């Protein structure tokens, strides 16, 4: 405690932190407001939902008031007042009213952000906000008086007591008889008398006349009274303020002057024990536990600082890889080095995982926008959809979450616009009139899988095929398996919409979704049953920053094959390779045959496939479970690599997902196994066609 500052004074740097935290908390309250209103709009009739939005508005107001953000106080107070009506009447706002609330939420958000940025809101902005809230009060049928009430300062400012300037001291007579309730609420007459004594010279007479015989004594009852003469320069209200907390729990008479009937002062007023019992004392507290409770369980960190930390850790991983590169080859020379390096690797990995864990967030932030989106699409399409959301608490890296909104939005649009049939069609198909859309998230094998499933008509493969032929994606006589036809919808430029509707967006199709999912290091797959519905599955990495991969060499280039896609490495020779047709080779692995592909040729590093008689291959699997063996020149070992984006003028490099920087400073490309197999499959289909013709 500093001498210059009053007790309880909070230093400015601490205050700055609290202010910062307040705005962060505001963002959470704003999100709560929005999701709460959306739930109400979706027909949620839980009074707790109304309570929670009320609390959110209330908390913004309370914090703003403490920090002196008056504009914010005013607006959030209006917001709260309009909500109070529903809270007390236990009714639910109508759709129209909810729209107004949602709009007002946006305005509140603007106001919060403007306040945070230290910006003065223009009159225009404030007026717009006020009009909105005036409308809000009107539509809710709320008595406008609480709103009008805020035109005057809503909160009592720190009182300036002019009475301090009145110097004349005068005597007051105070009769004070506590009731039992006073003690029951843990008030204490002695404390009040002590407070009163702060105002001036005081004589106290205890009146014990009400104390009954011991046999009649009720420990819970109150029997004592005091008669007090106080000499003070303060006013009657200052005197009464001492008894503010107890004025309903006692008989209190305050009058100017000395009472003529005052009981003569007792020579030695006995100390009066507080009748309310206070068992136990502070020493019983468990100090360790108290300390634990005092520890804040969360710490808020600026995202920028966290990102900087993550970048540094990424660089640390690279440095660690470099160190491993330069490690003495002969371990006997310095056996401790290898051990130390292993320890360092483990530590680096632990640090990395911990840091990545900090960035994890529930997918809720993306999912909570979906109900509103669905409603909008319903309106535009005239279809009705029941939306089910599962696993919204699934944690994903923040960067993945940020990139998820667009593809997910697109998929939901597609599902309702193209997937779910019209009311008439559904009736004809004997399906419930309301379509169903299920969106779920779950952790699966080190990745996050997000599914968007509708119960619509499923993919019309004949139609897809016809369009693919028309758009030259496949040749008219190509033999394409059923599920491969489904995958054609991800081809660039493909669109199933006969007419470009407002919703599915001007010819932009699933290829864009696939590209943005791939940009996240993710994969998309589709499964569909005619008449029963379509499910899109997004498989996403938990983090965008690092990847476990196998470093291989192809045509003199270093390539990283993600371990997630790698099943095993296989030696091949004439014993287990079978030529099929002019170009294709099959590799026998435990009784089954998978295509053996010259990776160098597939990537275009050499003009045509030249599989050597023997060599080494990586058996990989794509999202759909299809396997292929990729022949490479050499396997250099397993590596954890830091993913660097490889985007050249928004142009994706065929077959490459991203890049990384190796310990030797050179760039290595990270293979996109799905893309490689997709490009290969068209070729295979053509080979098969050739074979069929031969």
């Amino acid at each position, binding site marked *: 405690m500093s001498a210059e500052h009053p007790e309880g004074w909070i230093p400015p740097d601490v205050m700055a932190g609290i202010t910062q935290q307040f705005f962060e908390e505001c963002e959470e309250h704003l999100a709560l407001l929005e999701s709460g209103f959306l739930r109400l709009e979706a027909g949620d009739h839980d009074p707790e939902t109304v309570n929670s939005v009320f609390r959110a508005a209330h908390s913004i107001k309370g914090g703003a008031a403490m920090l002196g953000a008056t504009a914010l106080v005013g607006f959030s107070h209006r917001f709260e007042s309009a909500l109070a009506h529903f809270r007390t009447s236990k009714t639910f706002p109508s759709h129209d009213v909810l729209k107004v609330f949602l709009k007002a939420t946006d305005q509140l958000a603007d106001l919060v952000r403007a306040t945070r940025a230290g910006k003065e809101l223009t009159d225009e902005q404030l007026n717009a906000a006020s009009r909105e809230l005036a409308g809000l009060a009107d539509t809710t049928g709320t008595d406008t008086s609480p709103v009008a009430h805020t035109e005057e300062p809503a909160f009592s400012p720190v009182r300036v007591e002019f009475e301090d300037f009145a110097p004349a001291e005068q005597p007051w007579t105070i009769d004070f008889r506590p009731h039992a309730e006073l003690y029951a609420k843990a008030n204490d007459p002695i404390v009040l008398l002590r407070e009163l004594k702060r105002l001036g010279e005081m004589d106290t007479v205890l009146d014990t006349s009400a104390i009954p015989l011991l046999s009649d004594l009720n420990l819970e009852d109150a029997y004592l009274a005091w008669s007090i003469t106080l000499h003070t320069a303060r006013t009657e209200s200052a005197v009464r303020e001492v008894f503010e907390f107890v004025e309903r729990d006692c008989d209190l008479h305050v009058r100017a002057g000395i009472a003529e009937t005052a009981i003569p002062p007792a020579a030695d007023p006995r100390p009066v024990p507080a009748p309310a019992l206070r068992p136990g004392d502070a020493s019983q507290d468990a100090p360790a536990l108290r300390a634990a409770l005092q520890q804040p369980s969360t710490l808020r960190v600026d995202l920028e600082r966290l990102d900087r930390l993550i970048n540094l850790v990424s660089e640390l991983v690279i440095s660690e890889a470099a160190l491993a590169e330069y490690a003495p080859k002969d371990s006997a020379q310095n056996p401790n080095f290898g051990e130390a390096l292993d320890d360092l690797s483990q530590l680096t990995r632990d640090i990395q995982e911990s840091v990545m864990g900090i960035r994890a967030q529930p997918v809720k932030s993306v999912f909570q926008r979906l109900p509103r989106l669905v409603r909008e699409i319903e309106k535009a399409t005239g279809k009705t959809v029941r939306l089910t959301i599962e696993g919204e608490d699934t944690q994903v890296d923040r960067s993945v979450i940020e990139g998820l909104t667009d593809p997910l939005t697109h998929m939901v649009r597609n599902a309702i616009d193209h997937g779910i049939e019209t009311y008439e069609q559904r009736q004809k198909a004997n399906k419930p009139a309301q379509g169903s859309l299920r969106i779920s998230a779950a952790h699966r094998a080190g990745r996050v899988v997000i599914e968007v499933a509708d119960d619509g008509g499923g993919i019309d493969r004949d139609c897809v095929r016809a369009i693919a032929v028309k758009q030259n994606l496949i040749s008219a006589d190509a033999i394409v398996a059923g599920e491969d036809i489904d995958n054609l919808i991800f081809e660039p430029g493909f669109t199933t919409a006969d007419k470009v509707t407002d919703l599915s967006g001007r010819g932009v199709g699933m290829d864009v979704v696939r590209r943005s999912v791939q940009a996240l290091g993710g994969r998309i797959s589709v499964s569909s049953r005619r008449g029963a519905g379509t499910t899109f599955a997004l498989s996403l990495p938990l983090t965008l920053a690092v990847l476990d991969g196998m470093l291989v060499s192809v045509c003199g280039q270093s390539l990283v094959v993600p371990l997630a896609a790698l099943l095993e490495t296989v030696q091949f020779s004439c014993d287990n390779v079978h030529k099929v047709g002019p170009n294709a080779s099959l590799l026998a692995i435990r009784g089954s045959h998978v295509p053996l592909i010259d990776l160098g040729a597939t990537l275009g590093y050499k003009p045509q496939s030249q599989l050597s008689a023997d060599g080494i291959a990586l058996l990989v699997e794509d999202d759909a479970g299809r396997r292929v063996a990729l022949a490479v020149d050499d396997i250099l070992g397993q590596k954890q690599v830091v993913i*660097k984006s490889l985007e050249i*003028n928004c142009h994706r490099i*065929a077959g490459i997902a991203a890049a990384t920087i190796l310990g030797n400073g*050179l*760039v290595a490309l990270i293979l996109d196994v799905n893309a490689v197999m997709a490009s290969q499959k068209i070729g295979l289909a053509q080979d098969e066609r050739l074979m069929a013709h031969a």
Partner: protein
Amino acid sequence: MRDAAARNQAQETQERRDFLVFRVGAQEFCVDVLAVKEVRGWTPTTSLPKVPSFLRGVTNLRGTVLPIVDLGDRLQIACDTAIEDRIVVVVWIDRKLLGLLVDAVCDIVTAGDKNLQAMPDLTGEPIHTSVTSLITVDGRVIGLVALDQILADTRSQNA
């Protein structure tokens, strides 16, 4: 984008701008110095699969993956310097970095609007899409590289 913005600004205010001039074969080209991040020596690149040949590959620029465009290949002018002696001009294009591989950096020239002229119609010439203006200073004719166009047709060439 920066280049375009800078161009607009120049048109409006008649301000003079500085251009970094470099050499590809015997010809001179330039970019706005505001778009230049740095100039560095050649480092080995990692080839990218199935891209136009002028996209030479990617290299490590202090932890960032930097794509390198071989300007000689792009403009179809033969370079006359050994690969390891060539220079990479690192430029900003729409908040992303790109390296331009050139024979040598010459100097910086200052030019105003009067020195600037749109490239005459050379449709069919490989140069016409990526060099859209000419700067004439002290008898030199310097092609201004349109940075926003330098990668523009990678997609069509690839398809």
